[in-house]
């Protein structure tokens, strides 16, 4: 699949902070790419570079096949940006804001207004569109801002934390909008701190921490690789706990963790084939069980594992080819 966004070795320094060091991104056209990371990880900096608002200190990037530094005007023709904070003229109404952008994108004033009305209608802002933006609620502002970034029918859309501060209902609406745009072939780069959001929307996720890529992959891949899977067994009868522990040790080479209250045993599992062997062993030993299952870590566990110091960062970098800081 052709790449809509490709960045190699991006570096950006501010006075005494290095916001990005050696960031790589490759986003196939028509997909959603999630950029996940804690505060200060460099997400906004990366988006601003890719939107031609900042010049990187090193590295290069192409959007829609056009070099960001060599041909920024062409890049700007194909991108839309919804920044982390709504970027509208607060004194003007949403309609006036969008119509102005339409005019700047070379629409006639009639077509600019029509386009503005259509978009604001799609975002449920028809009733409010003639009011100054400063009278809008936070959620309305974000929706108006998102609408503003779509005036030029971008083929690549950057959304910097588009749902921060939205109620669950508005958040679902934004998600639906993103899915709708992707169905039309738009490429979306989305930054978020909500793991669930990345999990829901993104085809692939890049995890940033301290300006470096610490992991990259499909959401399920990331979860599997970050935490590995866990095998959980709970024998029906307490006296079987030791037997089961022995079997698990024999099969996986790990001493299982015991939950004394429930009698549940858990053990990290790398090879899913162990499952069938386990069932067989349990049957041979005459152990009945109430619970037997494989579990992937939640996105939150993954996120913490990847971004916290001393977490499971090192093996991740090996498996995923990320670069150590």
């Amino acid at each position, binding site marked *: 699949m*052709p*790449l*809509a966004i*490709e960045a*190699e070795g991006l570096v950006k320094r501010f006075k005494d902070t290095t916001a990005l060091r050696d960031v*790589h991104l*490759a986003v196939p*056209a028509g997909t959603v790419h999630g950029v996940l990371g804690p505060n200060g990880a460099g997400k906004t900096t990366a988006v*601003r570079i890719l*939107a*031609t*608002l*900042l*010049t990187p200190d090193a590295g290069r990037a*192409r959007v*829609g*096949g*056009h*070099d960001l530094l*060599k*041909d920024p*005007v*062409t890049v*700007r*023709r*194909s*991108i*839309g*940006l919804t*920044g982390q*904070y*709504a*970027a*509208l*003229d*607060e*004194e*003007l109404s949403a309609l*006036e804001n969008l119509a*102005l*952008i339409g*005019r*700047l*994108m070379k629409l006639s004033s009639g077509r600019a207004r029509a386009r503005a009305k259509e978009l604001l209608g799609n975002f449920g802002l028809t009733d409010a569109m003639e009011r*100054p933006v400063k009278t809008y609620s936070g959620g309305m502002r974000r929706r108006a801002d998102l609408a*503003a*970034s779509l005036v*030029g029918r971008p*083929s690549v859309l950057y959304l910097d934390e588009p749902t921060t501060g939205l109620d669950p209902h508005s958040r679902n609406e934004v998600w639906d909008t993103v899915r709708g745009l992707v169905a039309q072939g738009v*490429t979306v780069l989305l930054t978020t701190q909500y793991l669930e959001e990345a999990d829901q929307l993104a085809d692939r996720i890049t995890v940033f921490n301290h300006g470096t*890529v610490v992991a*990259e992959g499909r959401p399920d891949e990331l979860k599997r690789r970050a935490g590995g899977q866990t095998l959980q067994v709970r024998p029906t009868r307490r006296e079987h706990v030791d037997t089961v522990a022995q079997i698990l040790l024999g099969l996986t080479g790990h001493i299982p963790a015991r939950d004394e209250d429930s009698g549940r045993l858990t053990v990290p599992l790398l090879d899913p084939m162990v499952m069938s062997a386990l069932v067989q062993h349990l049957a041979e030993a005459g152990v009945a069980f109430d619970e037997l299952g494989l579990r992937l870590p939640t996105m939150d566990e993954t996120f913490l594992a990847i971004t916290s110091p001393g977490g499971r960062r090192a093996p991740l970098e090996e498996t995923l*080819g*990320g*670069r150590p800081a």
Partner: protein
Amino acid sequence: MTMPAMQTPPQPAPPQQPLAQGTQRRRIGPLEAVGQAFSLASRNTIKLKKNPDTLVDVTFQPLLMLFMFTFLFSGAIADGDRNGYLQDLVPGLLVFCPLFLTIGTGVALCTDIQKGFFDRLRSLPIARSAPLAGMVIGDVVRYVLSIAIVLGVSTLIGFRIQTNPFEVLLAVALMIVFGLCLCWMSIFAGIMIPTPAAVPGILVCAVMPLSFGSNIFAPAETMPGWLQAWVNLNPVTLMTDVNRELLLGKGDLSSLPGALAWMAGFLVVFFPLTMRAYRRRLGN
């Protein structure tokens, strides 16, 4: 991590040459840039139409001075010749109008940058110069309106133009150019200062000596020598002299070259400074 081979996604754009051969760098033509600047300038007119009281706000200051000096201080300054004092005061106050309005330019720019509206504009395929140019062009409307309001109100209380319409138009044109040159100081401040609320306070430090250290309110001869030296040099004094000639037929145009030199000076100093600050603050 190795990058997959560079490929081009489907795009309505013209066929793309491989990067190695150097893609055509697309630029925005000057005519297009002017059109964009005017579209952006329309923002100002929309705001004025919507919120006429914003103009009242900015004309309040000159009108306040008009009334204060005509009715409160003319007795003391001009020995009771209120009407004669008014005739001399108005041409000077008209110079004060664009000077005072330039403060708003910096505040508006700083607000646009802080609110991210500027980033939105910069992410659009428009000329780099359009946002600033639009701001400056949009201000012309404010200059004209405030000059008209002050002229109108002062005529009501007894000011009389003594010259022909051509001279009046020339005076108005000169004041607009004066505003357009001095506004770069304000734009520079708007870019350098991080918060909009701090902008007027700093600009007032420049606007006050320019406006009060002039011959608008009192003749230079009444002042101590060191102050006279500044007043006679001050571009606002020079512009006031020119205005008195063009509106009242009083004096001559001998101050015009000095006034024009000041305007050129403001441009030569603040325009490059602004451009440099613009590139810095906006990360390019």
